[in-house]
């Protein structure tokens, strides 16, 4: 008779969950410490402000994407959608349209994209990953056609949507991020609409049977993401000043990375938008630090990809172990 060793899944789960919660702040601190030691230019007020300003497009897209992912969906078209919106915004500005009108049009373009993405999943039953993949290909082609081998240069839409605007000594783009994240956080945690998002992501069938308006919620969430995309198109143009054939495309992957590194479950139902902001900070610190410490930026993708896989594996592992426990 042999006694077998104790295998305690529960301890593993507790540890993994702790890793899930604490890995982001720890990784962020490690990254900050590492880059500070590698370069004297990294941990300076100027550079950190720079990181914050350069984060704004990503932060906006990732905020909207968090809602989609919480609801159990995904969007892989955000990057090219930002580029396309930026192109429209620049073109309209160069035609001397009123800047406020341009801002409004940018939001409308974004909302329109949101309605299409949402409708494809709701009314045609296309899984959101496939629907948005198709849309991404369309946006990419459209941007390429409009760009027509000519880079489009433009001034910012409005001063507050550029890197140089400040309010109370703080860049307006940082204010914008703060306002968006606090409002969405309140919506998610305090409103019926927010609760419904979590419910749909947690159990779609149960949500339907207790009468939650699933179609409506999905469309509204898609439109919110669309507005974030439209706004990001404006801030992108305001920061960079030029639209090219591939403008914005890196945002697709980075936004998904920010959300999952933040600890929101890729399967939906669990997570928080404030943690997404942490994810954005981490990824932008990484981006900036790699460049500033003289590592060829070609390594960036490798690092970001590995980190996404790390975060998603952690999430998957907890799910697997919890399933075993039940």
């Amino acid at each position, binding site marked *: *008779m*042999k*006694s*077998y060793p*104790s*295998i*305690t*899944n*529960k301890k593993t789960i507790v540890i993994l969950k702790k890793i899930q919660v604490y890995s982001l702040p720890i990784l962020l601190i490690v990254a900050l410490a590492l880059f500070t030691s590698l370069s004297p230019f990294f941990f300076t007020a100027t550079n950190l402000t720079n990181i914050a300003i350069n984060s704004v497009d990503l932060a906006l897209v990732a905020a909207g994407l968090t809602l989609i992912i919480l609801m159990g969906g995904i969007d892989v078209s955000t990057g090219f959608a930002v580029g396309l919106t930026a192109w429209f915004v620049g073109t309209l500005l160069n035609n001397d349209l009123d800047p406020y009108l341009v801002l409004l049009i940018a939001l409308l373009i974004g909302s329109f994209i949101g309605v299409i993405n949402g409708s494809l999943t709701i009314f045609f039953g296309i899984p959101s990953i496939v629907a948005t993949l198709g849309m991404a290909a369309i946006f990419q082609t459209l941007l390429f056609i409009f760009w027509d081998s000519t880079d489009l240069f433009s001034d910012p839409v409005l001063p507050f949507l550029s890197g140089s605007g400040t309010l109370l000594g703080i860049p307006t783009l940082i204010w914008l991020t703060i306002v968006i994240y606090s409002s969405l956080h309140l919506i998610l945690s*305090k*409103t*019926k*609409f927010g*609760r*419904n998002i*979590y*419910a749909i*992501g*947690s*159990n779609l*069938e*149960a*949500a*339907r*049977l*207790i*009468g*939650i*308006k699933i179609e409506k919620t999905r469309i509204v969430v898609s439109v919110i993401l669309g507005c974030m995309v439209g706004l990001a198109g404006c801030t992108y143009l305001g920061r960079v000043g030029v639209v090219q054939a591939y403008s914005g495309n890196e945002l697709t992957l980075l936004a998904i990375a920010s959300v999952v590194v933040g600890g929101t*479950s890729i399967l939906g*139902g*669990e997570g928080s938008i404030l943690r997404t902001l942490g994810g954005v900070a981490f990824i932008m610190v990484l981006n900036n630090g790699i460049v500033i410490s003289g590592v060829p930026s070609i390594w960036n993708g490798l690092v970001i990809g590995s980190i996404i896989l790390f975060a998603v594996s952690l999430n998957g592992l907890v799910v697997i172990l919890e399933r*075993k*426990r*039940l």
Partner: protein
Amino acid sequence: MNFILTSRNIKKSFGSTHALRDVSLNISKSERIAILGANGAGKSTLMKVFSGVVQADSGSMELNQQFYNPKTPYEAISQGVSTVYQEPFFFPHLSVLENLLLGKRMPSKKGLLNSKDLIYKASELISKVALDSKILNKKMGSLSLAEQQLILIARAVEQNTTLLILDEPTSILTGTESERLFNIVNKLASSGTSVCYITHRFDELEKVANRFIVMRDGEISGDINEANRDKILDMMGTKESFDILNTSNSKLNSKKPSNKDGARILSISNLTSNEKFEDITFDVKLGQVVGIYGLIGSGRTEIAKSIFGELPINTGTIKYKEKLFNPKSGKNSIKNGITYLPEDRKTQGIFQFLSIRKNISISILSIISSFGVIKSYSEKKMSQDAVIKYSIKTNDIENIITSLSGGNQQKTLFSRLLTSKPDLLILDEPTRGIDVKTKFEIHDKILEIAADNTAILLITSELPELLYLSDEVHILRQGKIVSSYSKQDLNEKNILSSATGI
């Protein structure tokens, strides 16, 4: 003595809960064992240790005198321990044929599958559970829960099984299907397989077992060879429910008088849905419990879902509150005061990632919020009240719903439905897979709700439940109402003979 399975000093904890404290159990060849106990007594955990779903923290096992420590269900199955779970596990997108034969040695000629042989083999399998071979080409997901369960049993028993574990296989089956199952189980046992059978149904004890193991608080509290219900209940430690059960037979007849005077709230006339049910006519009054009983495939769940607006209706009319009612969607029905408790708690009921509080309040968010903002004080208070009112066992409403036992999850779903104060409540298998004590608590709640002038449409495959709760029962056979009984004519024999057509 040669035991096919010996287990010594098995211990297992989940968090701070000791699911198994110190269990030793030996099983002989051909033994039929019923495993009894209240929810949380450790029955399922013990079976999961046997079948490799979870691993014990300490202790040892031997199967056929060989060291046995399955790390996965696959290891257990390949060594001869097969399990049919309470919640059916299968591949919904594959056909019944494919579900039956997956992972088995296929009949083949020169490496090619021969569909004729496959179908022959599969027909043979499902004839063991008395299902028709026409079902083979259907998608598994399109079958009813009970048909699925029977297919899974057919699948499990075919494997070369030393020990067959059945986790409440009859909790979703009706009378005839259960009988069919008992026959299969007994045949298997006589051919040398040992059977462990978890059950909450006291009416079937003699039919399934010749040894009765009772568990309480993670320990074996009794091991007897006769189905002595008094003793068993005593060992289960649920004195309280024993009293209820003991009196339930007399209670069945003497229960509260049938409510005949309530206002008519629902009136169904000639309701027909293609190939599901036809010409269904009945009324439900306020304060009344109307039971719908029928075998698998008789259309009972479909009728409920059609009234709720989840399935289409072809002809016939529904009058609700004396007005013509067109159930467009569940959403619309809820708005009109009709709520529905679905039959499958896990996939249709709970929000598994949300807390108990959020699971309770989700149905009444519009009532406790102003301009879309949830009033957190009201939400906490109403959830707290619900936890007390429905005696949901938890020390914190912020705990995640899956930390509760099945029975308490079901009570949570009840409180969710009832906080919205419906006029008509449709209950589909309200106590499926729930321990005796919680079952009685829920029965009392149902009667209380009815007495509070709510109309209740009850679909259940448990006869005692049907008899105890209903003021009126309609028996379905092949989609038609074959007979209806009012309270005083209700008895087990009438119902079964109408339902089976014997």
